[in-house]
């Protein structure tokens, strides 16, 4: 299979020492939120090694995209990180527009930002609920889903779907906003501001929750960069790499918002960063919702899109981190090679390092705060 020079450290198949046991967490497990199979070597309650086994939801999206046209491949990407479906679609649309060198109308850009931020809030709400449930607090799950339901209903009215919205197209957005959109988003903002205090009281200020997350799963700044972590995981360790600030796209450069950075690098820091990001997303939506420019919601494009020969890379900030779409085109109607740089893939590689030496209960806290969505990792 491979020559002797390749394997330097065969520790992967090292025999077990006395007192060590191997347990499987997943692929069907209430806490992994998706089909993630972890093979954990334990000594008592302490974790010695974690080995993720991926591929349970591998759908070969990269290979499929090679035979789909530039309009079609966007829709398979909603299935990748389904909690930030809009943002995934946006990344693909941006890449194609870079290739076509297309100018997007202002109205479409603003709609794209509002949809992305709503998606970010919905994703973080689900994450808070699921993480609290992993730690044993069952009630916040229902409270956060109440907010998420409102967002889903708003999405359904405009885009036609609640989860895989498929709303972004190369050139703009697919449909114009529903007439009730602005008023519904405004009432959602009010609802969010009222209800987020409930969540803060129930979860953030709870001493049991703090004991379970402060100081757990620490990731230093250098390690975060080395492991390629992006998004809230990296920002909680002090890395200020928010794509919306560093490489702004689709009009983010004109908006005023802060990057939420924490230096502690533990699970509680990752939690606080996401809560703060929700507030920042509300702030962004508030700046835009009253001033959506009139005009076209879609730029005119040819029916069949052909990208010129070359390679194009677009990067966006999803709820999980940096999603990169790398298209290599040979001038045809389908891409020659697409690579999706998914945030979860790199975040997961840091899990083994973070969780070594901690207990199983801590593993749930650590894995919960990494916010892994497995279809994003397996593609």
């Amino acid at each position: 299979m491979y020559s002797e020079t390749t394997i330097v450290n065969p520790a992967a198949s090292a025999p077990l020492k006395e007192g060590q046991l191997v347990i499987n967490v997943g692929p069907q497990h209430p806490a992994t939120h998706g089909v993630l199979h972890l093979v954990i070597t334990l000594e008592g309650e302490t974790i010695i090694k974690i080995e993720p086994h991926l591929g349970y939801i591998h759908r070969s999206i990269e290979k499929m995209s090679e035979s789909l046209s530039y309009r079609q491949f966007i829709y398979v990407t909603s299935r990748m990180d389904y909690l930030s479906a809009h943002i995934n679609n946006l990344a693909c649309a941006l890449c194609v527009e870079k290739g076509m060198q297309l100018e997007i109308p202002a109205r479409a850009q603003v709609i794209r930002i509002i949809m992305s931020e709503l998606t970010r809030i919905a994703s973080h709400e689900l994450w808070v609920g699921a993480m609290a449930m992993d730690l044993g607090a069952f009630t916040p799950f229902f409270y956060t889903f109440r907010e998420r339901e409102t967002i889903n209903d708003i999405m359904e009215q405009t885009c036609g779907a609640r989860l895989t919205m498929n709303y972004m197209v190369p050139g703009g957005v697919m449909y114009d906003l529903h007439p009730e959109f602005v008023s519904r988003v405004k009432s959602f903002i009010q609802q969010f501001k009222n209800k987020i205090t409930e969540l803060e009281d129930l979860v953030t200020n709870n001493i049991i929750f703090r004991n379970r997350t402060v100081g757990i799963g620490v990731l230093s700044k250098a390690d975060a960069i080395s492991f390629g972590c992006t998004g809230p995981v990296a920002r909680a360790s002090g890395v200020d790499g928010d794509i919306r600030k560093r490489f702004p796209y689709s009009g983010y450069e004109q908006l005023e918002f802060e990057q939420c950075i924490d230096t502690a690098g533990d699970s509680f820091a990752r939690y606080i960063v996401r809560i703060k990001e929700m507030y920042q997303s509300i702030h962004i939506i508030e700046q835009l919702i009253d001033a959506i420019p009139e005009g076209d919601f879609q730029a005119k494009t040819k029916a069949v899109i052909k990208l010129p020969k070359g390679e194009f890379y677009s990067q966006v900030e999803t709820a999980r981190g940096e999603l990169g779409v790398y298209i290599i085109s040979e001038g045809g109607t389908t891409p020659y090679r697409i690579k999706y740089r998914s945030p979860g893939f790199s975040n997961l590689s840091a899990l083994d390092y973070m969780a070594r030496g901690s207990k199983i209960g801590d593993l749930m806290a650590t894995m919960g705060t990494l916010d892994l969505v497995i279809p994003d990792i397996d593609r």
Partner: protein
Amino acid sequence: MFSFQQWAATIHQWLQMHTGNWVVFWECVIIALLAITLFAVLGLVLVLLERKVAAHIQIRLGPNRVGPGGMLQTVADTLKLLMKEGLVPDLADKFLFNLAPFIVMMAAMLLLAPIAFAKGIQIWDINIGVLYVSAVSSISVIGILMAGWSSNNKYAMLGAMRSGAQIVSYELSAGFSVLCIVVLSGSLQISDIIAAQENGWWIFKGHIPVIISFVIFIIAVTAETNRAPFDLAEAESELTAGFHTEYSGMRFALFFLAEYINIFIVCAIGATLYLGGWMPLHIANWTAFNSIMDYIPSSVWFMGKTFALILLIMWFRWTFPRLRVDQLLTLEWKYLLPIGLFNLLLVTLMAIQGWHF
């Protein structure tokens, strides 16, 4: 106030007339049937109550289709569990596997004996009542460890070990809290403790030390019955159901029911020791007020207090996240136990000097 002693005396006389020397036997049979019925009814009611309380805390409705307002939901659940296939793992220790649920059930049923449900309704007013309760509740640990061991499953074993450590540790704190009341009442007998609260419940008469003791008691019994936030033995998201992972069908139903009966029993003991049991709210020397309070039947008082405590414990479950196993044991050994010991000294001092009401 109304007492059931008359009825008990009448039944005893009737049995003596008709059965002669077999009176004790027939009385045991009647009591056993009543206890089992109580067990079943309580189980039904508590499971449904838990689901409804959970639902309302989580801004939803809970079961409301089966029967009026969802009241027959537990009946449906029990029927389902009865008809499920009870799988026994291949390499499991069959004898212990089948025996474990019964041990846990037996401990729960035996604990029904010293509880005074109303004035005159008490199965066995043993003179070491409180000690009996403390001792018998420790038997359930054996059942749990048996269940974990005989399942032949790593998860079950880990869960049983954690659970065993937890219950044994928190027995101590619960014991010390109970001792505070015993010191104040001067007797281990349940009826004496209730009689001592005739001029006011201990939680009011004993002010601060007894309130501290009550708080420790509530925390300790929540941990003893494996309820959240101390439920890592059954934590779904960590070790998939812990010690009863491999149990299904009727055996699982027995564990499930026994857990809820345990909650009822510890709340009943808490109500008896701290809140007066079936004794109505009396304020010393306010005879008019006291006689008004006496109109409410003693069984209503007892059930009201017990269910208030049960609701409190259920409220805990749906509010707090879970403690990690080392945090749980730290809480007990480094915080609750020293405070409990010191509190006991304080209560003894208070009792000797007569600083309570």
